[in-house]
């Protein structure tokens, strides 16, 4: 069999082998049951003591969200100033300049919200200090914020009726000490032993074999790349992200990185089932999501292996597949596999350039980010899917003419209103953003800005439109990948995507946690013959249909103007 295909099958199998036991462990650990990592308790006690936190204080949903928002807002302010003044701070061996205010605004939001759009290039736009103390720090804590918020939803449905969603600080710190940090250490060591730099040495300079002078950027990258994947962050050390040969030196590191960005999203879904003692619900959700992933992945792999038809016309066979923007050591199959997983989860790291993938691949990448609930980012994937569940419960309730219930709690007008608003938020942000940008691009091509709109796009026609659509979709999904041809480091893109990022992150966390909090306070209704069972295949199919219909209705017109139009224009 083709070794490129066996490579991705093996990556997939290893992911499941790790994720299933990890799910059981997470469910137990967050429930406070005995687990083998309990030897870390003294470390946690120390952290809580130094921070003046009592991790056992119960919180209702409002207190939980307040604590979560407070620490996130603090990071925004402190990180913003660190980026602006990074040139004056230590650990800057390459002498890189401070970020402009609009770039720092975008960058800090982007990292706090677990997105990592990166309108700068790591080699020249950041220092070792900001890479570690701001970016890598936020890699850990933004992932932990998402996981902790999801655990609050877990907690809401474990007990029959409760106002206590657990303590935010407790879940947050444990996500780091019991999950993210230990796994990051393992991954970082694998990476550095395969050639990813981990020392603090600055740029190197040498004369190449044929006599050119080469400056080569380095730095302690392995540490950051480990958590960048594990925490579904995606913001890399170098500009080319995981296509860069020092970030991702060989096929083994490629497998490590793709596996590490998928295990937590998968494990969190199953952990939900274990935690609320409805194992089957976890597996039904897993089934729906996996069907969705395969629906996006198989056509992606096939379109990349097929190669570019316009290059085929020049007489080039492309027997391995399309190679523009890809690396030989991974090959098109592993790059296509990665492109699906990085867009269904909110990672957004790339091992090949998405802007240069085939038109239909772009369609699947966009759709994956628009849906944003097939596994999704650390913790937040579950929260996004939870909204789809509430909508599906509501519609099913209407269809059979009963008051909708979810896990023994009546779903009433207030919860459905919140769910509907969150559902409408994504198309609103993506479409409004893209429409405004398209308008400026067409009507004010040469307006007197530092970067004129006429210089935004790297590609003409339909593909240029896709570049703008992709940027807002990625920002709203907190994904962080891009059609990087877009000239995005200027005031329009920095500011507009900054707002999309922050709304697209916090409202979809606040909404589900609020719904869960509201539902959990309600009287528990025992199951009866008339109860809608949510852990059945039928309801799984129903949810799948709801997801497809909602997203098709919202996005088909925009997708038709971008990747679909480009695809048909290439077949002419």
């Amino acid at each position, binding site marked *: 069999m083709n070794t*490129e295909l*066996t490579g991705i099958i093996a990556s997939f199998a290893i992911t499941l082998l790790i994720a299933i036991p990890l799910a059981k462990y997470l469910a137990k650990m967050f429930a406070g049951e005995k687990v083998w990592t309990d030897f870390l308790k003294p470390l946690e006690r120390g*952290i809580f003591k130094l*921070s*003046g*936190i009592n991790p056992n204080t119960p919180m209702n949903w409002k207190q939980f969200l*307040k*604590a979560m928002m*407070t*620490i996130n807002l603090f990071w925004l302010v*402190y990180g913003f100033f660190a980026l602006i003044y990074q040139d004056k701070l230590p650990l800057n061996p390459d002498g890189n300049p401070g970020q402009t205010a609009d770039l720092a605004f975008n960058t800090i939001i982007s990292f706090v919200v677990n997105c990592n759009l990166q309108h700068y290039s790591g080699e*020249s736009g950041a220092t070792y200090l900001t890479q*570690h*103390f701001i970016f890598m*720090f936020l890699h*850990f*804590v933004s992932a932990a914020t998402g996981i902790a918020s999801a655990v609050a939803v877990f907690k809401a449905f474990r007990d029959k009726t409760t106002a206590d969603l657990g303590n935010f*600080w407790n879940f947050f710190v444990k996500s780091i000490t019991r999950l993210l*940090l230990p796994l990051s*250490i393992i991954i*970082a060591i694998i990476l550095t*032993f395969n*050639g990813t*730099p*981990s*020392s603090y040495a600055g*740029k190197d300079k*040498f004369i190449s*074999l044929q006599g*050119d002078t080469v*400056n080569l950027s380095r730095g302690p990258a*392995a*540490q950051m790349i480990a958590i960048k994947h594990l925490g579904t962050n995606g913001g890399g050390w170098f500009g*080319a992200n995981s*296509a860069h040969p*020092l970030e991702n030196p*060989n096929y083994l590191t*490629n*497998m490590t990185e793709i596996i590490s960005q998928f295990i937590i999203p998968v494990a969190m879904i199953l952990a939900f089932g274990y935690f609320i003692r409805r194992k089957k619900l976890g597996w039904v959700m897993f089934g729906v999501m996996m069907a969705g992933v395969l629906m996006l992945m198989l056509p992606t792999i096939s379109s990349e292996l097929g190669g570019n038809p*316009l*290059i085929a016309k*020049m007489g*080039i066979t492309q027997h391995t*597949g399309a*190679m523009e*923007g890809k690396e*030989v050591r991974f090959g098109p199959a592993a790059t296509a596999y990665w492109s699906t997983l990085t867009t269904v989860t909110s990672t957004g790291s790339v091992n*090949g*350039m998405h802007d*240069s993938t085939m038109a239909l691949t772009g369609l699947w990448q966009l759709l994956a980010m628009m849906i944003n609930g097939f596994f999704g980012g650390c913790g937040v994937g579950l929260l996004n899917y939870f909204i789809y569940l509430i909508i599906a419960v509501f519609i099913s309730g209407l269809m059979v003419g009963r008051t909708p219930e979810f896990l023994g709690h009546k779903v009433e007008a207030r919860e459905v209103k919140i769910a509907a608003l969150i559902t409408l938020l994504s198309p609103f942000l993506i479409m409004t953003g893209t429409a405004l940008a398209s308008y400026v691009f067409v009507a004010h091509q040469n307006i007197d800005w530092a970067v004129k709109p006429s210089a935004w796009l*790297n590609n003409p*026609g*339909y*593909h240029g439109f896709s570049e703008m659509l992709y940027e807002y979709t990625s920002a709203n999904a907190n994904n962080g990948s891009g*059609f*990087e*041809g877009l000239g995005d480091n200027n005031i329009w893109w920095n500011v507009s995507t900054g707002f999309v990022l922050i709304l697209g992150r916090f409202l979809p966390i606040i909404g589900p946690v609020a719904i869960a909090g509201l539902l959990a306070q309600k009287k528990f209704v025992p199951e009866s013959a008339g109860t809608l069972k949510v852990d059945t295949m039928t309801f799984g199919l129903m949810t799948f249909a709801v997801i497809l219909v909602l997203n098709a209705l919202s996005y088909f017109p925009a997708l038709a103007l971008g990747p679909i139009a*480009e695809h048909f*224009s*290439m077949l002419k």
Partner: protein
Amino acid sequence: MKTYLIQAIRLTVVLTVLLCVIYPVFIAFAGKLSKGAGNGETIVVNGKVVGYAAVGQSFTKPQYFWGRPSAVAYNAAGSAGSNKGPSNPDYLKDVAKRIDTLLKYHPYLKRSNIPAEMVTASGSGLDPDISPEAAQIQIKRVAAYRKLDETKVAKLVADHTEGPLLGMFGPSKINVLKLNVALDGLK
């Protein structure tokens, strides 16, 4: 709110020490034990560093095996892909030009023998590898320029072909820099 803010600030300080000092410094020390001591593995010829094993460099002279086209001319301090879309007319012209250049230097080649990666830019602009097929097509040219026996060069190419991981996973490849260093050593 105020209690949360104070707790948030204190927790941020404590976690910064753990995540941004203890963790990365520990990994940096572990990295010292790796090949290249955590600085990246270099390739040394006659006591001089000529490059990094993992990072591709520009080869344009006809007596060397060539690597892939790069959107940033192999700038190792500014990695990037071309980000050209598949239907971009300017991009397709670039590809056509690369095909013509290859045919000019390898007049014995048919278009259908040209591997796709030799006419398309890599994702990082620093791709260190080419496929075995891409090396095959260059053997005749390199041997002619160096006045070497073709079979000798072919053997070198075969020796430098790295198979899939564990023989099962991923593509085969050849590191262009390592191949060219060995080529310079041939007599």
